[in-house]
């Protein structure tokens, strides 16, 4: 196959005029304080940091930086609120959670725009995926609140106490929902820290929580960076830590709480294998590859970042994938036609660019479509690395960006071995029209989530979590309640 031979042949002619979602309906303050004990209060040390729009480098707002003193206030408030909240009937707790879910739905448009402004993800995703799923999560766990006895028959589930929750920047509101909803339903009180680069939707959620009259101190939201997170992890009066983020920080947390009686659940990194067999519906598989790695600019812990294609169809798949990548629209996150938005932060952009350099120096063959990238802000074109192997660093390490490594395989046993040949084990994808082959693989792949003939699908009723260094504990579904209860 000649290089890019069909690049010009099937080139799109019709450039869609800009279709930006309006921002005049959103309500943002210039400065955000900490949400502690049912009030927005200034940080003790009075320090603030900026949150930046990654698509144009402009400051959106200043946000309070919580220090150890603030975290202590938050934990005290949560401790004070615990008894009342835990003793409230499940039905009444459920009412509050339903109220949060409904208010998110009512203000979905505002949340979607703020999520895209603060995090750089395309409005199509924040509008159609992040915000509806976040509301769903609250709806789902609201339903469990008065049925815990049925979730754990004859085991008398009790809440753990005060829970410290630390969430990442890739799905800011959705991750807050994943953490808050089951913890609230089971009767715990919470200190939650959103990521420093994307705190705004969590702070808007604090407004909603305040509006719906949740008893004060049940949910406390403290903003800040790694140090604030460490203060939560090391606080002596916290009963459990729930963390989603990098494996590096996950290991730090595991060490920090060793020897304490804190419980912990970790949802960490991944390097998901996406496996295309020759008997797959190739065209839909190509679409699945795109959804697996370019969804949310590749800032997805369960991204399908390692592609395995059976050798007999490798040429065809790669040719079709390249052609498809030519039609991806990269640009303004608020434009409704944007497929790939901005990289979340300068720091992450550097990480990704560094891995691309490593890939090149290791001899990988790079492919990027001809897309024009905006001048300001953080941007990375969707990228393929061909001719790489399990020994390449870019195949082994999580890049957390729109960079896909492509390897070929010959037999089913070979691909199972290669797919499992990683310290991670969060997700995998299998593409074949042969049902028996799907079950053969799903039993042997070491991954918490395995998608068949689709990728990156989420649902509140379905448990999500990792194997190996991708963490432990499950979020979502009935299984998602368990990390927040103890049994007598």
């Amino acid at each position: 196959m000649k290089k890019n031979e069909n690049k010009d042949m099937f080139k799109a002619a019709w450039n869609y005029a800009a279709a930006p979602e309006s921002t005049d309906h959103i309500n943002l303050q210039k400065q955000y304080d900490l949400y502690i004990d049912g009030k927005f209060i200034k940080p003790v040390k009075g320090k603030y940091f900026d949150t930046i729009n990654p698509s144009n480098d402009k400051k959106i707002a200043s946000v309070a930086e919580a220090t150890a003193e603030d975290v202590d206030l938050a934990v005290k408030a949560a401790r004070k609120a615990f008894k009342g909240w835990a003793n409230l009937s499940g039905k009444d707790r459920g009412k509050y959670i339903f109220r949060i879910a409904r208010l998110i739905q009512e203000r979905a448009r505002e949340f979607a725009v703020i999520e895209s402004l603060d995090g750089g993800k395309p409005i199509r995703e924040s509008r159609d995926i992040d915000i509806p799923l976040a509301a769903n999560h609250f709806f789902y766990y609201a339903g469990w609140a008065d049925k815990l006895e049925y979730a754990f028959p004859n085991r008398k589930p009790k809440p753990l106490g005060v829970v410290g929750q630390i969430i990442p920047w890739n799905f800011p509101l959705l991750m807050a929902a994943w953490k808050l909803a089951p913890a609230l339903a089971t009767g715990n009180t919470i200190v939650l820290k959103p990521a420093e680069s994307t705190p705004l939707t969590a702070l808007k959620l604090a407004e909603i929580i305040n509006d719906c009259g949740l008893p004060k101190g049940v949910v406390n939201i403290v903003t800040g960076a790694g140090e604030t997170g460490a203060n939560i992890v090391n606080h002596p009066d916290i009963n459990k830590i729930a963390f989603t983020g990098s494996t590096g920080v996950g290991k730090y947390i595991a060490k920090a709480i060793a020897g304490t009686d804190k419980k912990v659940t970790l949802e960490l990194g991944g390097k998901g294998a996406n496996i295309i067999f020759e008997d797959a519906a190739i065209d839909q598989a190509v679409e699945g590859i795109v959804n697996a790695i370019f969804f949310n600019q590749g800032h997805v812990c369960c991204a399908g970042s390692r592609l395995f294609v059976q050798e007999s169809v490798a040429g065809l798949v790669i040719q079709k994938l390249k052609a498809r990548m030519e039609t991806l629209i990269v640009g303004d996150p608020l434009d409704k036609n944007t497929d790939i938005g901005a990289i979340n932060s300068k720091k992450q952009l550097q990480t990704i660019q560094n891995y691309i350099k490593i890939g090149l120096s290791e001899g990988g063959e790079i492919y990027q479509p001809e897309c024009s990238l905006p001048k300001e802000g953080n941007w990375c074109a969707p990228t393929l690395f061909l001719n790489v192997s399990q020994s390449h660093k870019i195949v082994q390490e999580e890049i957390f960006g729109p960079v896909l490594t492509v390897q070929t395989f010959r037999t089913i046993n070979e691909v199972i071995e290669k797919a499992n040949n990683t310290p991670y084990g969060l997700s995998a994808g299998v593409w074949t029209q042969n049902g028996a082959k799907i079950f053969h693989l799903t039993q042997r792949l070491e991954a918490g989530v395995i998608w068949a003939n689709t990728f990156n699908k989420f649902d509140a009723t379905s448990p999500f979590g990792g194997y190996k260094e991708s963490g432990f504990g499950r979020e979502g579904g009935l299984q998602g309640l368990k990390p927040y209860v103890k049994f007598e």
Partner: protein
Amino acid sequence: MLPNLNNLPVYDTTGVDERIARFCSRSIKSSSKKEGLKLAISMIDLTTLEGKDTRGKVQQLCYKAMHPHDLLRDIPKVAAICVYPSFVSIAKKALEGSGIHVASVATAFPSGQSALEVKLLDTKSAADQGADEIDMVISRGEFLAGNYQYVFDEIATIKEACGKAHLKVILETGELDTLDNVRKASEIAMYAGADFIKTSTGKVQPAATLQVTYVMLDAIKDFFIKTGKMIGMKPAGGISTSKIALQYLVMLNEVLGEKWMNKNFFRFGASSLLNDILMQLVKAETGMYQSSNYFSKD
């Protein structure tokens, strides 16, 4: 020669639906909307295929084809008029000098349940009267019975009978049931000599859908990669609004791209679509929707 049909790509309906949803979520506004709508008009095969068609009806439709809406400037003419064989000479005369093609359905349209000799005569008669394009139907019964060679040969024979006229092959996807069948029939038609492949007669439900059109565009793309020959596409039936037409164009744009974005390689088989587009264009000019009574119904 009949291509190898055992190794064709297969389609996952859920996956195709998802892809279609992505096309439909494209937001086509302002200048690109106008551009798209005008392009759509220039791709219309303005159609009347009724038992009650008359000379008068066909003549009126031809006038509409040449003058879609004289109050608006820069409105293109439609691509063709599509009629039964008995009206070819009338349409031909009415459209003289306009550059608008006359397409005639043939081969015992719409069911195709006739002897090959009858179908050939039907085709020749339309071609002799000056039809620029022939829209034939495939023998779905033979196709579903697995007689692919029969279907292939029939198309090839009809193609010969067309002479200079372009051949559009109607698969009648509403009777083929699966996307894999649609792909197979597309493959047979293209290798047998079709200039266009077309979804439906309009007489069977469902008629054109974005899903089957997607599969056919994918087949056209693969055929081009293999043979270097560009085949045209015509979804027909059920495309009655501007919104749906734009969704088809978005799909065309993102699957086959600019070389196919013209009336030589893409057509809409439609009748009521034209006035809906005109209404949208007037709205874009004036900012107001007008009553449908301001648009001629021929």
